[in-house]
């Protein structure tokens, strides 16, 4: 399903999000700009922006098989998102980056760095920070020390100085972007949203793959365009929320929306998690503000033992606010962390009388036939009738 949105900005976002390298990134590079790749939303883009770099979130987009990565990560045991992402690294898709910081979340993700170092891919700067597993002041302080260490190493390697002023500017920029992104999400509360879930993914993912100031300006334009769109006809049968890892492409949304559902919200690693809240823009230490945001305000990863109550609250709040009819909990095979989280959520939602469909799948949208059947049945159920 498409919303029928006609927008140059939107088309630009679609092109950027559907591949890896794009003209804007290429242009940045050609003008001598540096690019820092990163995995995981816990890795703060603000630090890279303050270093004058373009933050580029590493994805598995476009990867059709993971043969090369399967030599490093055993295919029956490691989630396909990690393998496809690393496969893109091995096939040279990320040869344009000047460095990468791996956010050490789950066991597989943590070892992307070790395997990258062993691979023939010669990325000049490779580093790692570890995601906190608790959400308290002590953990925030520990995370702050990690960020401080990373900052020093970046300054040494790239010969830059990351000042507090630059960090505050970067924080402000990213907060602005998150504000606009949330506003776009908010438009989907209406009965006839001007943008679909699949289209929203393109908007959000594009933001992690292009220069930030330009992205902010484009978002503003898009928002204005969306706000002026009038959708009179209801084109869907059920309103769905997606919860789970990844979600860096629209394949799941496409399936739902092709079958008469509409994805009105999500809490995923590339979507709802990324846009949540804002970093405090006052205080003496911008790095501390970032650390506090990641650990205390936005600890949505189920790897964090304190995350579930926040995940639960966010899901239930959004179900109410966005008038969600049913939730789809998607897990990639071999993802223990989200497997447990979706399991717990499933019970809680069932108790609250909210339908949930639990889907275990591979990162690439294979077996879509099977998936489609299950999704179709779910949509029929929650819409209360045949499509």
């Amino acid at each position: 399903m498409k919303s029928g949105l006609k927008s140059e900005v939107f088309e630009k976002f679609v092109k950027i999000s559907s591949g890896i390298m794009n003209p804007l990134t290429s242009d940045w590079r050609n003008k001598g700009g540096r690019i820092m790749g990163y995995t995981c939303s816990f890795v703060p883009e603000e630090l890279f922006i303050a270093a004058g770099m373009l933050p580029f979130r590493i994805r598995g987009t476009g990867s059709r098989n993971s043969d090369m990565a399967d030599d490093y990560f055993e295919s029956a045991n490691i989630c396909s998102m990690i393998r496809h992402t690393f496969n893109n690294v091995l096939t040279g898709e990320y040869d344009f980056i000047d460095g990468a910081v791996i956010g050490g979340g789950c066991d597989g993700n943590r070892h992307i760095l070790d395997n990258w170092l062993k691979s023939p891919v010669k990325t000049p700067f490779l580093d790692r920070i570890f995601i906190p597993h608790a959400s308290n002041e002590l953990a925030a302080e520990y995370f702050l020390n990690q960020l401080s260490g990373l900052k020093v190493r970046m300054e040494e390697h790239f010969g830059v100085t990351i000042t507090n002023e630059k960090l505050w500017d970067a924080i402000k920029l990213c907060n602005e972007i998150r504000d606009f992104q949330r506003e776009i999400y908010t438009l989907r509360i209406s009965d006839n949203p001007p943008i679909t879930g699949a289209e929203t993914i393109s908007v959000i993912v594009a933001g992690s793959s292009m220069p930030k100031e330009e992205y902010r300006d484009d978002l503003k334009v898009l928002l204005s365009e969306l706000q002026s769109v009038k959708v009179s006809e209801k084109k869907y049968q059920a309103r769905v929320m997606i919860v789970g890892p990844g979600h860096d492409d629209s394949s799941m949304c496409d399936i739902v929306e092709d079958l008469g559902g509409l994805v009105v919200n999500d809490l995923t690693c590339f979507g709802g998690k990324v846009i949540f809240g804002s970093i405090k823009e006052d205080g003496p230490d911008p790095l501390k503000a970032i650390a506090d945001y990641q650990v205390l305000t936005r600890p949505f990863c189920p790897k964090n033992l304190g995350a579930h109550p926040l995940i639960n609250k966010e899901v239930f709040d959004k179900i109410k606010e966005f008038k969600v009819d049913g939730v789809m909990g998607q897990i990639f095979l071999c993802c223990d962390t989200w497997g447990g989280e979706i399991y717990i959520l499933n019970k809680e939602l069932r108790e609250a009388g909210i339908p949930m469909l639990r889907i275990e799948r591979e990162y690439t949208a294979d077996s879509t036939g099977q998936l489609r059947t299950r999704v179709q049945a779910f949509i029929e159920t929650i819409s209360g009738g045949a499509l």
Partner: protein
Amino acid sequence: MTVFDAYILKIAEYVEDMRAQGRRIAVFNVPASVKQLKEGLPVRVGPNANPGIILREDTYVELGNPEVGSCAFILFTDKPELVNDGRITVIGPDIKDSDNKSLPFGQVLLMGGTELGGREHEELKYLGFVGDQIEGYMVRSYTRSIWSRVSKDAAAKGFCLESLGRALMSIYKSGNTKIESMEALFVTSGRGDIKELDDIATQVQKITREIVRETWKIRGYDIDCANDCSSCSDKPVCDDIREVLRAKEKNEQKGEESYNV
């Protein structure tokens, strides 16, 4: 490889500092060549020189029990002139002066060679797992620090820290021909002195981690064997071997001499 140069100088400063504090310091200057290093040693050095293990009751002295203090690391440089080839420095009591006690133990091995670089780090570290190569001296399986035992027999034969230094030098120099100069420092004077050495070790460890990462980066990889049997290109060969072996076993059980494959 110059990253350790500053620390090689720090070790020299440490020794002078110990001297200034009145520590007992003995300095030995031993030959450079592997052959000469082994000559006159009271114990054998080489593969299988210490085939057994040294039991508690056979121990003359224990060095570096973590309860009393232990520290060990290596430093290397591509400037051989920074390292005093053949020098063995002992700060504190030697083995014969130990009164059968357990001594704190610090061991620093310095190596110089124009071709020594980051790639050699892992190999040099691996050489340090001396295993059974020094008669009467057993290094316990431990990481980062050294925890070892000297047997009564070895002590009776005159094994001392100079012997240990010579033995280690011969093992390292014969294990890696890029080592042009080598020096050893042993510290047994006290836990506090070991702690000071450990502070240097902590800084060195940060650098060695970086070296390890860089070394992995330089390596390539080859896909000639997948990670489990089902996708391995050699699986048919393995399967054939297995069939042959099964057939052989069966025939042997039947008492037949020949078989067809």
